[in-house]
């Protein structure tokens, strides 16, 4: 059997809370479009135990809302948008909601916004969609992105303003397609955002999913990948910076249900200030049919001040040993004083040295994003976080 614990030979291998063994198999969790299949969470459930559910009760309530995000932005040639029904969305082969908030969002979203790219179309440049919050009313949204076989597209959704937003994002990546989807959370301080992002990845397709969470009171995003055939590649990148009182929770679930696929999950976050909180849960299921797959997941957290807390839990379920590789690394640590000493010994003042180290910490993810259209806004926002820092 392949060495499945540490194929990359990383010697750093520490877990804040130890490897958590879930009560049941990951795929035993309910998936359905029927709200009645999900009870209202009380915070003790496996999937909600880290979340401030008491502040989120109306996200679980089955009630309609007229509120919508205001969207703007020009779509590049090759991408079109239309409003469709949930039934029509289901016919595209989207995955079912996996928790109460997502199922309510799917059923109560006033419409499904469908972005589509026809087969064999290479879209030049990224589609940048500005989605602005309009206030305190709970907002439901359902976004579907379908990209045809051998097509190529990059879609960026930039969330800003004040919103209490619950969404289901469904991505259908055709065979041989190359799709990048970016979700930027640049919300106002009081905003709350729950989301489930699902991707079904086609034969030999490439899918890159990028989450950047910098603003908001609560952001909780679940990103799930499943493959529709062999040979798909999924890369999930995440970057977050939690300040005092912010709760940023990111969950990833790679369901290796086909042979010869790959997945690479890479999330990095910094935390500073009282009650800054981050949660990363990385689930990987390697099913018996997932022969020859290769998976790796990594989460690193940098704690910049007292009073912050990061939870980091990788879960790996392996049902076949006949794979190319499977591993994970998770670490949560404080600022390395040796880094600081080295930079300062070259004359660099402490505050600048700290900023250099934090920027360096994020660089590893930033270098992998490769969407030039968002580089500027991203650098600006990270500089902004650093300049407001209590370092």
């Amino acid at each position, binding site marked *: 059997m392949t060495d499945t614990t540490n194929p990359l030979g990383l010697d750093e291998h520490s877990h804040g809370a130890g490897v958590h063994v879930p009560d049941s198999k990951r795929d035993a969790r309910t998936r359905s479009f029927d709200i009645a299949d999900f009870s209202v969470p009380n915070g003790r459930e496996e999937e909600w135990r880290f979340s401030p559910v008491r502040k989120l009760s109306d996200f679980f309530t089955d009630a309609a809302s007229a509120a919508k995000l205001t969207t703007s932005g020009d779509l590049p040639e090759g991408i079109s948008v239309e409003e469709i029904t949930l039934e029509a969305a289901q016919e595209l082969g989207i995955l079912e909601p996996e928790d109460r908030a997502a199922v309510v969002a799917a059923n109560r979203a006033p419409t499904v916004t469908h972005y589509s790219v026809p087969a064999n179309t290479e879209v030049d440049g990224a589609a940048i969609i500005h989605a602005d919050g309009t206030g305190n009313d709970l907002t439901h949204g359902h976004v579907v992105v379908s990209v045809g076989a051998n097509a190529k597209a990059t879609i960026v959704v930039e969330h800003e303003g004040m919103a209490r937003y619950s969404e289901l994002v469904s991505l259908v990546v055709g065979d041989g397609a190359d799709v990048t989807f970016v979700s930027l959370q640049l919300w106002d301080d009081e905003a709350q955002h729950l989301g489930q992002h699902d991707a079904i990845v086609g034969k030999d397709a490439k899918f890159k999913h990028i989450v950047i969470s910098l603003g908001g009171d609560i952001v909780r995003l679940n990103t799930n990948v499943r493959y529709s055939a062999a040979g798909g590649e999924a890369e999930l990148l995440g970057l977050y910076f939690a300040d005092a009182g912010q709760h940023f929770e990111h969950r990833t679930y790679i369901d290796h249900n086909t042979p010869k696929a790959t997945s690479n999950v890479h999330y990095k976050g910094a935390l500073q200030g009282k009650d800054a909180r981050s949660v990363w849960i990385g689930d990987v299921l390697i099913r018996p049919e997932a022969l020859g797959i290769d998976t790796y997941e990594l989460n690193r957290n940098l704690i910049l001040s007292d009073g912050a807390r990061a939870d980091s839990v990788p879960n790996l379920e392996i049902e076949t040993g006949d794979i190319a590789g499977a591993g994970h690394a998770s670490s949560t640590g404080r600022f390395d004083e040796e880094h600081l000493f080295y930079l300062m010994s070259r004359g660099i003042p402490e505050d600048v040295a700290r900023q250099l180290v934090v920027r360096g910490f994020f*660089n590893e993810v930033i270098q992998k994003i490769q969407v030039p259209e968002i580089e500027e806004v991203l650098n600006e926002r990270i500089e902004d976080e650093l300049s407001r820092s209590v370092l």
Partner: protein
Amino acid sequence: MSNLKITDLHVSVNTETGLKPILNGINLEINSNETHAIMGPNGSGKSTLAYSLAGHPKYKVTSGSVTLDGVDVLAMSVDERAKAGLFLAMQYPVEVPGVTVTNFLRSAKTAIDGEAPKLRHWTKDLKSAMENLRVDPEFASRNVNEGFSGGEKKRHEILQMEMLKPKFAVLDETDSGLDVDALRIVSEGVNRVKESTDVGVLLITHYTRILSYIKPDHVHVIIKGKVAEEGGPELAERLENEGYDRFLQASA
């Protein structure tokens, strides 16, 4: 002309079991353009002296003084010492993930000079310093010390010394882990800085090998945290032949 003066310096290191005294009254004085070799067996306190001068938080000065041109160095923060003109080439340079060599060097130069270097001169100077030290141009875009070989780390330290032009440079076992070719390249780098500036060099070493490339004016032998003997270059030759045994026996 500058002067670095170490007077009756006592230093303890923070360990898990408390403060442990390492330096027990070091006296040493060096002027611009001088090269002093500081030699001694392992564990004698040579690196402690180097880190204490740079202000590493692990080392606590319990008494004594260090002055640079009469100004109290021990009262300065780590970055202030560098700005005052002290430089430490480390034995074990630290990896700083995500920070490129270019970015690091420019940040350091800007901090030390108090203004950003003129881009055209800076690029030219950096390029020629890198060529002289035989480092790959691609080196500049790599992250600081990340994945560097032992020799590359040491060359990177000397590159910094060339670019930052300190008044006094402490080279902490810069020769350790270098093969003959790398030792020659690194030594040439140090000699270039000596020729082009008035730098005073404190060359900390266990072996005499590097002293055939970088000629010391004075040699100080440290044993158990004190200067046990001082002399000219001939003292190094004697150590080459006799080792440290006679000091260790005398102090035992």
